[in-house]
């Protein structure tokens, strides 16, 4: 799907729930195939193709935790909250909120689902290990 011209129109949730679980909505360059998250329609970061050649793609909200950190100080937001650096199974590395009830370790398998953090909806990753 090729998105509309005005980038602000569709600045909304960056994920959706499907029968396969939560998926992150990303972008794909229809010219060179480069993909990334979060979705955007400004242009391709690799080949420079314009927004009308940027389509939408999806990434499984599943990956490996590279590192995590509990944040203890913030001017506006309630603390603590836990953030993680995650390499998605589909490629990109992202920063995202983690479930603060889990005793995390680097290398953990993580899966994302919709959750509330800092008074907004975000994808929150929890343990994918059973």
């Amino acid at each position: 799907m090729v998105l509309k011209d005005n980038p602000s129109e569709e600045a909304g949730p960056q994920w959706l729930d499907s029968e396969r679980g939560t998926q992150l909505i990303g972008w794909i360059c229809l010219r060179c195939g480069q993909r990334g998250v979060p979705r955007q329609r400004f242009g391709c970061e690799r080949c420079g193709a314009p927004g009308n050649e940027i389509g939408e793609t999806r990434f499984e909200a599943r990956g490996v935790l590279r590192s995590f950190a509990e944040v203890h100080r913030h001017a506006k937001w309630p603390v603590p909250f836990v953030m993680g650096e995650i390499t998605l199974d589909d490629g990109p590395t992202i920063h995202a909120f983690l479930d603060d009830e889990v005793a995390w370790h680097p290398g953990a398998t993580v899966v994302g689902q919709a959750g509330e953090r800092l008074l907004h909806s975000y994808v929150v990753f929890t343990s994918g290990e059973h």
Partner: protein
Amino acid sequence: MVLITDLRPVHVVGIGLHPYQYPTETSYIELGLQAVREAIVDAGITWPTVEAAFVGTARLGMAAGVPMLRYLGMTGLRVSQVENASATGSTAFRQAVAEVASGLADVAIAIGVDKPIGRIAAPDTGITPISPVQDVPFARYALLTERYLAEAGYTKEQIGLVAVKNHNNGALNPYAQRRKKRTLEEVVRPPYVAGSLNSLQITPIGEGAAAVIVMSEEAMERYKVDQSRSVRVAASSTVSDQAFDGANADVALTQAATQAAYEEWGGDPSDLDVVEVHDAFAIEELLFVEAMGLCPPGQGAAELAKGSFDIGGRHAVSPSGGLLSMGHPLGPTGLGQIAEITRQLRGEAGVRQQPDAKVGLAHMVGIGPVCVVHILQR
């Protein structure tokens, strides 16, 4: 491509600073004027000699230059404002150097002045983020720190030694925002801001000013500038993001920018005596000294512990105290690095003096990311 040093030679002839400090009610004009006046006196010239000014500020907003510089006498000089995030001062310096190298001016000044009052445009893209971690720089760097603890096998104490060294250097610098020696225990213990980051491993954002005057050799003759105190600009390089697929962009940029600078200079990193590094977070110094080739990959912590990066060591890294101790008022920071290296290469750094320093490198990265590197040579 033409390099700045392919053009005519440019020398740093004057440096000045207003000490970096926690935010006060002091006007930015007062901060900036103190640095500029100090630089003019240091160069031994008069203000009307300066033909072009590049005013670096990241947070003041529009039109900071002329309302400040008019109090030096309205000479009609060319004034431009420069912004490049944390690399603002470094970029203002490059612009001033290019102005003189190209022959557009014989004498130019780069000024960094800032107070943390304005907004930051980078997060305001219209793209909804997966998480707002970009708004929490210390969370981003806590994740980076934790990743290196896990993957490179560093210990918290090894990273903490960066902060100990730089706080100890900054304690000796009258322009530094934090001027207190710290022990390893003080920089690694709780409370943590995020992850295992103690606030002493994070730069304080404050206010201040720095100014650097550059000149052509013809002008140095004409204005009878003391050539024994001048320092030549041997390389100037700057690059922006070109990393993909989860590579650490700041490290990739540092490698690219320093490599370009080494080629322009024609020297080798082992010959660098003084290096001022963008150490907004302690982990960065270890990553960047490795990326710059000051030691083999993975050896940064061991070399630091051996004293290789101390004043008096193989390379004095951030003898000013770095961003961790001298501070990071944004606009001035990169110019404060140039001032420190100039002082070191002149042999005027007093108790912070790296013995027989001949070559120095200044390195800043900024949101973008961007990276700016300069090499100065006696």
